[in-house]
């Protein structure tokens, strides 16, 4: 196995685009190294992006924040600006692993690992996050976070492409977001179901816009428009929340596995979407 730790993104892209065989980009390593140790993957090339200075930066941009690919969960959790703007995204990222893992794990890594159960992804999707990708020859493109994962362990990234950063956009006034996951324990676990909600209120208090995303209930994170529609135009009264929960459950197409059953995930997706909506609503009202 070859290990490279370039100091610029252009070098990183160059190395990756010329490589044959199995390649992996290493940020925090909290997925890649675990997979290597367990024998799930034996890469021919590992490109460590932590030596690229810009990758560690959180920079303000147009009222939002650009988060570098090597920014750890701990770093994000200590950033007052991001926390104030998108608390749900920060909370979701901070749910990954233990305190020790938080010192290494990155939000971008969580996205690119492409697990249907990734905690940060429903929050990123509801926040409307934009992913910045660099490819061979320095070509840059931007796609919504929603379009990165295409299936378990699979992304839309082409050979030689690296995610450089994620833009968490500016947030309109009277907005709030939240992410909740179900795990049997209190920490150190993988979501059995995850639910993210982001919403914006009209000045009169009715819901102007909403996004609802669910994790671990399909092969990819689901953006559930009927669940969002169920609360748009309402003040999140019980009937509206019941409709949101029902729509969330209806959108699920989960599997039975060691972590949960189809029946359980379907029901709990609705329960969590509803609870997350209530938190997001409280945040939007200040």
């Amino acid at each position, binding site marked *: 196995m070859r290990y490279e730790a370039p100091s610029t993104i252009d070098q990183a892209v160059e190395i990756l685009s010329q490589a044959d065989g199995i390649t992996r980009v290493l940020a925090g390593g909290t997925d890649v190294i675990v997979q290597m140790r367990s024998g799930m993957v034996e890469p021919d090339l590992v490109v460590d992006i932590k030596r690229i200075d810009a990758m560690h930066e959180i920079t303000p941009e147009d009222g939002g924040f650009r988060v570098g690919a090597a920014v750890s969960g701990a770093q994000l959790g200590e950033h007052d600006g991001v926390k104030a703007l998108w608390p749900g995204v920060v909370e979701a990222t901070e749910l990954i692993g233990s305190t020790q893992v938080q010192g290494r794990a990155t939000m971008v890594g969580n996205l690119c690992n492409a697990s249907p159960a990734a905690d940060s992804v429903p929050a990123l999707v509801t926040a409307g996050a934009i992913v910045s990708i660099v490819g061979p020859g320095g070509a840059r493109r931007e796609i919504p976070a929603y379009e990165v994962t295409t299936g378990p362990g699979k992304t839309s990234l082409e050979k030689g492409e690296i995610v450089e950063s994620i833009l968490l956009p500016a947030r309109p006034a009277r907005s709030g977001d939240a992410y909740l996951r179900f795990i049997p*324990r209190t920490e150190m676990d*993988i979501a059995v179901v995850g639910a993210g909600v982001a919403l914006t209120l009209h000045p009169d208090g009715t819901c102007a816009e909403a996004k609802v995303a669910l994790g671990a209930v399909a092969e990819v994170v689901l953006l559930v428009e009927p669940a969002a529609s169920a609360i748009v135009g309402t003040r999140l009264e019980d009937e509206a929340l019941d409709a949101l929960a029902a729509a969330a459950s209806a959108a699920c197409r989960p599997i039975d596995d060691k972590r*949960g059953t189809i*029946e359980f995930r379907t029901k709990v997706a609705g*329960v969590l979407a509803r609870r997350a909506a209530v938190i997001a609503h409280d945040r939007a009202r200040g």
Partner: protein
Amino acid sequence: MLDKAKDAVIDREFKLVGSRPVRPDGVDKVTGRARFGADISAPGMLVGKVLRSPHAHARIHSIDIHAALQVPGVKAVVTRDDFAENAKHKDVLCNVMARDKALYEGHAVAAVAATSAAAARKALKLIKIDYDILPHVTDVDEAMRDDAPLLHDDMITSGVDPAPEKPSNVARRFEFGHGDVDDGFAKADVVIEREFKTEAAHQAYIEPHACLASLTEDGHGELFCCTQGHYAVRDICASLCGLEVSKLRVTASEIGGGFGGKTTVFLEPLALVLSRKTGRPVKMVMSRDEVFRASGPTASTSSSIKIGATRDGRITAGQGEFRYQGGAFTGSPVQFGAMCAFACYALDNVKTVGYDVVTNRPKQAAYRAPGAPMAAFAVESVIEELAVKLGIDPIEFRLKNAAQEGDKSSYGPTFPRIGLIETLEAAKAHEHYSAPLGPNQGRGVASGYWFNFGGATSVSLNIHPDGTVALVVGTPDIGGSRASMTLMAAEELGIPYDKVNCIVADTASLGLNETSHGSRVTFASGLATIEAARNAKTEMCARAAMIWEISEEAVTWEDGHAKPAGANAGDFEPMSLADIAKIAEKTGGPISGHFEKNPAGAGASFATHIVDVEVDPETGRVEVKRFTAVQDAGKAIHPSYVEGQFQGGAVQGVGWALNEEYVYGPDGKMQNAGFLDYRVPVCSDLPMIDTVIVEVPNPGHPYGVRGVGETGIVPPMAAVANALSAAAGVRMTELPMSPPKVLRAIDDTRPSIAAE
């Protein structure tokens, strides 16, 4: 006689016993100096790795190791051909290295020694095995069916008269009890019958199995390994490898948890044979994945319970059938389960039957009170249900039926002095039992029993010229026992705690010691320590008598000094232990105390636990809000480590109750062989586990000690189930009570509530 001994114990005033000094191994543990199984190396050492069966059940036609041996750095490959048949340890041999069949996923089929881990791993991939895949069975009830795949063609159920003609997966049948249960049920006003299932749990010790073996061509072996019983490791390895017992010296490392799971061998015989074949030391360390798939978790079980009681709360009959699978070989702990099931109760009519069943799972090993927790889950759930149905307080109901001294136990013997009633009364009086509960919260209670055990024990105690004492024990310290032994030696000798240094000796340096299991160490090694100290005191009194030129009988030992007594009282200045030790060379030479025996009289320990849980009715998630463990310790030598045992048992029980389980796919392969998906409780899952130490002295121990290590895991599962029943109105009869099951039970119950 019994009362006299009891009074003598109660009357004694202790100076050190009952205090909480720092453990002697503490500094090494917190600084990282302590040497655990994988922490030792040797010059020229090779790395050993095991190839394991990917199939749950398969006949092994052939094993081709030629390509593996060609890998640079590979020094040896061993297979079934490298081990001679062994009648005495047939199952152990077959478990450490598969013979004609791989009997479970993870079953060792070959092992490699190489100069690097990478070379060993590469070699494993090149070993070619021709398998004939066979149908498998992992569920205990399915394994008992007539059409189940058969693991062993020659397995005829023992304990059945007349013996069955056909082989089956049922290895043994047991029966215990007395009276006439049909008669008892006829007298009952209320009878409850329930079926229960429990899933296999792993001991989940943090330290994986590890060893370093060196075996020379002339049959001299050394083995360093993490184990609860290095003498047992020595005896089994000597037998499997064809060595003389005296030539195999085994040293126990510090141990990162065992809980019963490190009472047998897995890697050790392979490492020894690889070492013999290569002429070099071989180190082997299991991965976590291997620990789950190929060490010894506990049994999964199913059981049928029937209990009857009168309206005024007297149990008229108790009946249980217990079916335990213990993996691919005979030896599930169903016998203990059937014995302990009703041990808490004084019953006129009781009958338990146990079936020991084999399946395509790893061979079970002991786990804290082996067999008892599963039986207690079933029985104590029904006991609570009966109490609720009769409108009697659950502790009161247990008190009305509790076993006490003189009662014939449900499994035969008559109980000596025991402390169940005291634990029930302490629980009832505890503030926890009457504390208010919040919404969606419920409280449950359960009691539990474990026999405890004595066993072969040797201790040496050497008095050094500088007045310090070396205490040499042979029971690996799995729970702070060196601190307890040191306290007992210092107490008996009348010297400070820090003047005694306790070590765990290797198998060549001390007489036989049975494994640290059966909650025996503080009882048996403790008794041996006290007796060895008394033996040394007798000698020290004799030395003082010689110096003073008076008879030995005229010298007594008091407060760490030999003193002239009787007619000679006051004639001479008392001599301290240090005074006598200093001149021992001139009074006849070295002074030591010894004890070598099988101590009988291990006192049983009972416990009663109180648990509060809160249930999220929309997700089925159960949170333990409060937990109080009350248990009889006889006499707590070092109360911190007694409390630690109560807490550890409670935590492991909560894990078993709520989330821990072996999950098998239809292919018979374990789906969750890691701590991510095998869910032991993490710190933030639990409240502080409160403890109450009850002390009903054991007349069989000089200080009244009862072992406390195991009983603490017996009540929690039933206590949690009972609390959940109170909180959410659902009676869970299957472990683990994981959220999907609890939510389904709640949802199934709700329409019926609405209909009412």
